[in-house]
């Protein structure tokens, strides 16, 4: 007899799940029983992740929606309910990274764009799933942050957005905890993703050696932390930030931080 999976009967929405960290999260959640709503800005990557899940025997639907926009979030949640019902797990992963951009080179429009994609999307998606979670008395929201929220030169826009993720997570945790909904965040450091491969070699090396173990993480390292927080058994954990950073966030000196 096949044992009951911990997320059996649950519906998980993962944004930005066409590739990289989001795809790994969607795949792992499907492996523990959830029906997956795989969102990405573009249809093709989302469809690939969904196809991989169904090929492994899971249930998944691909949705192309821009979660930085109200209309996109509305379309995503409508598609989710049509396919599987109300989401019980939301993973706000969609985002865009930025590095090495001095503050003088970031104009107001670009700053707002980074906040919209990384932070406003998380607010909009959480707001969309919460009524049903509150009514059901159960829910798991996991926001993907970044250790960049601690502050890093050249990342004032991205770091501010991810700092917003931390604050959003904590405020929501306090607000909806009474309804049995937990809200937590996972903060990766440098993870090997397609986006990372486009970085200059010198930047990659600086990032790698900045980790105490001198190695990058992989998307699955983040996905495992998300899976843990998504479990029904993790119901006493809320408002927390769990780093999947290989120890990158531990040193207490500015010399190490800016290396």
């Amino acid at each position, binding site marked *: 007899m096949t044992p009951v999976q911990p997320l059996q009967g649950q519906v998980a929405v993962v944004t930005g799940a066409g590739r990289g960290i989001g795809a790994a999260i969607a795949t792992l959640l499907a492996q523990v029983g959830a029906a997956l709503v795989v969102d990405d800005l573009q249809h093709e990557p989302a469809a690939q992740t969904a196809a991989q899940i169904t090929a492994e025997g899971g249930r998944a639907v691909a949705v192309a929606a821009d979660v930085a926009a109200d209309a996109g979030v509305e379309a995503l949640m409508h598609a989710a309910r049509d396919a599987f019902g109300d989401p019980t797990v939301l993973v706000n992963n969609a985002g865009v990274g930025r590095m090495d951009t001095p503050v003088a080179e970031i104009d107001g429009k670009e700053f707002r764009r980074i906040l919209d994609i990384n932070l406003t999307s998380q607010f909009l998606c959480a707001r969309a799933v919460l009524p049903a979670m509150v009514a059901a008395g159960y829910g798991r929201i996991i926001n993907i942050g970044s250790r960049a929220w601690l502050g890093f030169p050249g990342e004032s826009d991205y770091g501010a957005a991810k700092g917003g993720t*931390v604050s959003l997570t*904590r405020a929501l*945790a*306090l607000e909806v*905890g*009474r309804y*049995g909904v*937990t809200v937590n965040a996972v903060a990766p450091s440098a993870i090997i993703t397609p986006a990372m491969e486009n970085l200059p070699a010198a930047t990659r090396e600086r990032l790698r050696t900045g*980790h*105490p*173990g*001198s190695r990058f*993480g*992989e998307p*699955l*390292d983040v996905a*495992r*932390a998300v899976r*843990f927080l998504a*479990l029904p*058994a*993790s*119901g*006493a*954990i*809320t*408002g*927390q*930030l*769990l*780093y*999947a*950073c*290989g*120890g990158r*966030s*531990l*040193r207490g000196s500015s010399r190490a931080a800016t290396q």
Partner: protein
Amino acid sequence: MATWSTACWLGPPGIAEQVRTLLPDLAETWQVVADPVLLPERVVDGSVELLVDAAMLDHRAPLEATVAAVDRIVATGGALRRVVSVVTTAWLGVDGDEREAMRCAAVVGHSRAQALRRAASGVTVNTIALATAFRTAEIPAGAPLARAVGIADLANALEFFADPESHYVTGQTLNICAGTTVLSSMSV
């Protein structure tokens, strides 16, 4: 098939027994040491793969001796891969019990330093901080989640940190508190 061959538990044997019952596949054999001062030689023979330091859950456990015992096991542990310390959320500060706050905060600082020291060798060192109310199984005062924190919550987090696949998570302190620590400036 157990995840680890040999695990060592420092701290209250009663809690160890409950955790072992909840996680029967975590380790084949457990060496339970109630008093870190009396660390047996068999614990420092290098065979321990998973070390759980829950000594601070016993109010009477001596801090210095516990830290020394952990250091000794880590230093001699050729097989060691995972260290998980267990404290209470008193590490963030607690009204009326400076000693408990100091003991728990010391373990958190020690764990972070050990995590840095051991990162290159693949040993992860993390801390679980349980709501102080876990001892009475009561809902923590002012908890956003209206639920108690218990040994099952400890076991769930221990299973995650002890997992061989959790190799990229180190130096972390996870508050399991039903949300009571969120208003602390030190809880992120």
